[in-house]
């Protein structure tokens, strides 16, 4: 798997890439003298898409911010979004811990591409704040960053990393979503055009700026080039963060023949993602391929649910968590998510009400597209997918039974993750 590893070589486990000298030995120095047009053209040729979940073409976002820039609006701001709110995702924390210079290089590339005068790295409150500040200080002493960079932190909540929440917090407000329009690429921080990119997306940009778009396309699929960081957990030997080309086989990512127990379903994309049937791991992990089962890669979360665990119990626990993580700003989310969570909990606990699945379905449709951010939509998607994938379990629950033989929670819900799950897998 070594040849796949671009962002986390040697699985990044050594942590040596935290040192600027080592970083330059491994990747070479970054040349920022090229024009913005050339940088954006390279990223376009690479076919890079956002790695934070939305999967939007990166060059288009860069162009949108660059185009929105006017002398009267002030120069753009670029933000590296490392506020990974998803409890089942660890890849941004691992990347920032093990290879922070790639992210900060990418931030400089993005700043150059859009003509920004200010760069921000945005992370959750906690140990990353001082770690990243140290890295920025080392780079300042080495005088390698033309665009000044600062750290902004936000409470470790699920929605802190939502794009408009990021802008609000960097502006000095609360890390809560704001109403759009206008979109942040037109009017973001200080009413200036603002680029918010996931930290992994920026790390890929740092490599594309060095090695070119054609190099980037050397891995991944034609339609979805490059590698991606996956956070793999559940019934696997070595949970953790793995880098793999987009289009990798699910069974390869989970470790062929190395599952710790039989698996029935896999959560793809995260808590705003989709449950799919495991189907012996015969899935290809690309958006094009997953479309047939209604799933998207999202931010690369892959959880193999052991068949001994009840998918309804797991889903109801996560949806309850997500309902509690609502910013409580928008009526449909504030009221609808707890209602979905309540119905799911009833189903999970064996309340014999055959109308529950239809209630969940109706409520899920009801919250879709009716909020300032996509939190209700994502939560509804996840709940709806559980109704399809755990259909036979629902039938059991409605007659007061449950197939589970194991009861330890699989999907984390907000408590600090166990130490080993933060590490990088092999």
């Amino acid at each position, binding site marked *: 798997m070594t040849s796949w590893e671009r962002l986390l070589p040697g699985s990044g486990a050594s942590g040596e890439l935290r040192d600027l000298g080592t970083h330059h030995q491994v990747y070479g120095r970054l040349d920022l003298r090229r024009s913005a047009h050339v940088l954006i053209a390279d990223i376009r040729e690479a076919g890079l898409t956002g790695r934070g979940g939305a999967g939007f073409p990166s060059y288009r976002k860069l162009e949108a911010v660059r185009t929105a820039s006017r002398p009267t609006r002030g120069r753009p701001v670029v933000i590296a979004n490392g506020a990974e709110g998803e409890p089942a995702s660890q890849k941004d924390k691992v990347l920032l811990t093990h290879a922070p210079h790639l992210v900060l290089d990418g931030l400089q590339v993005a700043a150059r591409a859009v003509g920004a005068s200010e760069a921000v790295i945005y992370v959750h409150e906690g140990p990353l704040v001082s770690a990243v500040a140290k890295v920025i200080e080392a780079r300042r002493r080495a005088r390698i960053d033309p665009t000044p960079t600062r750290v902004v932190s936000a409470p470790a909540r699920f929605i802190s990393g939502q794009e408009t929440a990021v802008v609000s917090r960097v502006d000095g407000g609360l890390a809560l979503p704001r*109403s*759009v329009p206008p*979109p942040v690429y037109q009017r973001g921080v200080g009413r200036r055009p603002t680029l918010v990119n996931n930290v992994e997306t920026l790390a890929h940009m740092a490599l594309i700026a060095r090695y070119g778009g054609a190099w980037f396309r050397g891995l991944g699929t034609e339609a979805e080039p490059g590698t991606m960081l996956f956070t793999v957990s559940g019934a696997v030997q070595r949970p953790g963060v793995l880098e793999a080309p987009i289009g990798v086989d699910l069974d390869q990512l989970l470790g062929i023949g190395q599952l710790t127990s039989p698996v029935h379903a896999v959560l793809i994309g995260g808590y705003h993602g989709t449950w799919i049937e495991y189907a012996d791991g015969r899935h290809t992990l690309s958006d094009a391929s997953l479309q047939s089962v209604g799933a998207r890669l999202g931010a690369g979360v892959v959880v193999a649910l052991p068949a001994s665990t009840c998918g309804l119990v797991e889903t109801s626990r996560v949806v309850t968590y997500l309902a509690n993580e609502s910013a409580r700003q928008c*009526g*449909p989310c504030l*009221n609808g998510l707890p209602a979905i969570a309540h119905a799911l909990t009833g189903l999970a606990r064996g309340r014999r009400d055959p109308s529950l699945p239809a209630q969940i379905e109706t409520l899920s449709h009801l919250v879709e597209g*009716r909020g300032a951010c996509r939190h209700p939509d994502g939560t509804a998607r996840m709940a709806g997918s559980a109704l399809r994938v755990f259909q036979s379990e629902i039938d059991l629950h409605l007659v007061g039974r449950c197939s589970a033989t194991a009861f330890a929670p699989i999907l984390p819900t907000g408590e600090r993750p166990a130490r080993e799950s933060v590490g990088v897998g092999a």
Partner: protein
Amino acid sequence: MSTLGIDWITCEGRGLCAELAPEVISEDPWGYPIITPGQLPDDALPHVRRAIAACPALALRLVEDDRRRS
């Protein structure tokens, strides 16, 4: 042609809009507006404009068709 946009953060679910423009706005179980999907029919526009003007939270706006969806 245009559509009706809602600022969900501002909207308090007071329900005036659904009373003033019932042909395109209904209410969910919690009193928040549900807009009939698609373009607003021209003959609904007078009622819609009345609803926009009456909203105590100023949460409604007309979105012209050519504008980028938020």
